């Protein structure tokens, strides 16, 4: 057998740190390490986008509004991406999060209208609970009925949206329907950092902690890495997959509440298409679409990048059409980069075995 030497972890190895710096030429090594750590690579790209946009128009970052928008706008997608990432890592996908979010956003407004004086915390919990319940439906169908998640959640995406449209009718919830204390949550900030951003980052941190330190969190990775091996290991695969969907639904529920607080209105189009942004954020952030690897931090930075780039492109004078194309290019670039790195890794392992 070949002596297997210590090697840097591959870029996609889940876990806290990303790649450890390679040996050899310092500059090359540092660059290599940064590329191996998807989180750092995407973060650098994000900073570059911010820098270019700010150079073009300094209100992007340097005014109070610019700073606030930069931090606040991604908060909803952050929550969705964190949830989506847990599902993707088990080799599934949840396309229903946009519809789930729309339902809980509407529920939030409805509760304030129908139950005057209801405590805000109760409304928040109700939104999370409804999201979790919708996640249970997805999870049970995927984990126990063994139907591919893509199909199931495509179905529930339309069903949940249909329920929301039927329930809301031509209703539209306006800021005047909701108590000012609730709407204030959407604008409140601490040390110039918006409250909703703090909530979103705290959620991401909790998810990261759970995935890293809990047995059930690690098992999500194992299931996505090789479902058959997970069964042979005796892991409770269906239970874990269900858990991932419930957590994802709950976070989508929270995102709906956050949407209501942030924008003050709830229309039937809330969250249309945002599920694909959540998937895109995870992929850009280095979460393998076939499961098993990636971090919630990567998904989070991917989410911030997606939102920020959408806001930066108009400033750079890029027409609307190209804005979508750029997002597409980002996703394709991320996937191609993954493939190249994986091939390089495989070649290195081969050489290692030969040598």
């Amino acid at each position, binding site marked *: *057998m*070949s*002596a*297997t*030497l*210590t*090697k840097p*972890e*591959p870029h*996609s*190895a*889940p*876990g806290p740190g990303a790649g450890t710096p390679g040996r050899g030429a310092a500059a090359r090594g540092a660059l290599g390490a940064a590329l191996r750590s998807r989180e750092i690579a995407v973060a650098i790209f994000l900073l570059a986008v911010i820098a270019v946009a700010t150079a073009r128009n300094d209100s992007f970052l340097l005014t109070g509004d610019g700073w606030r928008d930069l931090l606040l706008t991604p908060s909803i997608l952050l929550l969705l991406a964190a949830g989506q990432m847990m599902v993707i890592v088990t080799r599934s996908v949840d396309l229903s999060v946009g519809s789930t979010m729309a339902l809980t956003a509407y529920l939030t407004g409805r509760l304030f209208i129908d139950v005057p004086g209801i405590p805000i915390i109760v409304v928040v919990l109700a939104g999370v609970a409804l999201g979790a319940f919708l996640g249970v439906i997805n999870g049970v169908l995927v984990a126990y009925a063994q139907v591919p998640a893509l199909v199931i959640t495509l179905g529930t995406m339309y069903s949940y949206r249909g329920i929301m449209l039927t329930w809301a009718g031509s209703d539209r919830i306006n800021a005047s329907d909701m108590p000012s204390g609730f709407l204030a949550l959407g604008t409140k900030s601490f040390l110039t950092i918006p409250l909703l951003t703090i909530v979103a980052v705290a959620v991401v941190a909790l998810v990261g902690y759970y995935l*890293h*330190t*809990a*047995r059930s969190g*690690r*098992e999500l*990775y*194992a299931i*996505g*890495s*090789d479902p*058959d*091996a*997970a*069964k*042979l*290991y*005796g*892991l409770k695969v269906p239970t874990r997959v269900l858990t991932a969907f419930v957590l994802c639904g709950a976070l989508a529920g929270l995102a709906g509440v956050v949407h209501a607080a942030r924008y003050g209105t709830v229309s039937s189009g809330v969250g249309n298409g945002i599920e694909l942004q959540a998937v895109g954020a995870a992929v850009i952030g280095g979460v*393998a679409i076939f499961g*098993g*690897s990636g971090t919630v931090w990567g998904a989070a930075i991917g989410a911030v990048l997606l939102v920020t780039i959408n806001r930066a492109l108009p400033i750079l004078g890029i027409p609307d059409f190209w804005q979508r194309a750029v997002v597409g290019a980002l996703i394709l670039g991320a996937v191609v980069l993954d493939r190249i790195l994986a091939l390089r*890794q*495989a070649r*290195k*392992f*081969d050489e*290692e*075995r030969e040598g």
Partner: protein
Amino acid sequence: MPDPLTKASAPASTPATPVLEMADVRKSFGPVAALRSGTITVHPGSIHALVGENGAGKSTLIKIVAGVHRRDGGTLRFEGRDVDFTSTAESKAAGIAVIYQEPTLFPDLSVTENIFMGRQPLGRGRRIDRAAMLAETRSIFARLGVDIDPKRPALGLSIADQQIIEIAKAISLDARLLIMDEPTAALSGVEVERLFAVARSLRDEGRGLVFISHRFEEVFALCDQVTVMRDGEYVATTAIASTTPDAIVEMMVGREVGELFPKQPATIGEPVLQVEGLSSAGTFRDISFEVRAGEIVGLAGLVGAGRSEIARAVFGVDRYDAGSVRMHGKAVKPRRPRAAIAAGMAFVPEDRRKQGLVVDNSVAHNVAAVIRTKLDKLGLLTTAAENKAVAPWADRLEVKTNALDMAATTMSGGNQQKVVIAKWLATEPELLIIDEPTRGIDVGTKSEVHRLLSDLAGQGLAILMISSELPEVLGMADRVLVVREGEITAELSREQATPEAVMKAATAGHESTGELAPVLPDALLKEVGA
């Protein structure tokens, strides 16, 4: 339930309670009886070999112990207690570890996580104690004397290292019974020795080991007892010290063959397929043979010997590094199945559900799939045209489906196989390559498939048949080529092809463990030399 230990079927009785006792364990999958009487007694502190031909029921027996399958009947005791595992988690919790030929690890996760997944040591607040996990991995590796970085991902590990991870897992579980299912099949000589050293040290700690292998020299070098199985039944258990490889081969194959599936004599014509010096790095080396019109050539050998790979290379599915394939003397382009089909080859693959048949499509669609281009008009393919072209073939093969538009998935294995053969016969081939023609097919349909092959040969078709079932090879083939570890080790005429001769050529020693060669059966050495 306390066990009174009334049963003493083990030949070598030891005072300690056997770690595993199985008696008359049965298991059927549908109408197919995979295991008819599984019987084995494994003692602590011993290594027990389990041998038998492909399909003898060894894997089924192992999977019952592992909790993958549940037995239909019979006794299963672990450390003296009656057990009935319903999942792999249960057998594992009881203290049983199974190491498969191709270990199943999580490629994305670190070696350490692979060892401890699902039962990581927990610290305060039920958090995974990574430091403890890493320390324990290091100490197990130190004990096994291996140098694997515990933090690296399992992706890219050699098979040998992956098996070491599996063994480390078993040790960390404190497994009292370790089952190794052909662990050496993919290992080099040095790796085999390292594995054996580990196995012996585990035995000396008082654990029971079961070792499944086709390599007799390994069985004789490593094991204390041997249990022989044949056709899903227990044959005998003896101490290694009191038996010989020849005696074991005899027990493995001891049955009547040649009556069940007789091939009718056919006029053997000109060579149709000529293969010369075909090699593919790491898979097979220097393969030369020919198949003549009207002849059935059997490729015999063990699963994994490289037979299917040779067939795939001949047909152009897989690449080869050197050598040539000729049909009627004309070279066939490598890596082009289309060229192979145009040259008159047809290929019925091993796993018909995956490779040969679009199971959700109708029979007609399936049969017409390869002759599409002959059938279409202006690029369109009509159902009527398909049915018309297909009907005579289905008729001739007596495929029992009510209508040709029935989905193939609803048919029995035998009928599915006939559909696959029909599909290829519609191309009017001159050479049929067929891999495991009757795998998973009930006995009745088996002989129908054999009769069909015999008829086809009678009409002048050249047939290259890969089969792991000895009676099938001996009954059907005019000539038998035995493949072992990527090389043809014997070419036997119908008269020379006895079960013993084929088995010996298929299971003989392994160069890289050359020092073990003296225990090879004498007859085998003569045969390889011849």
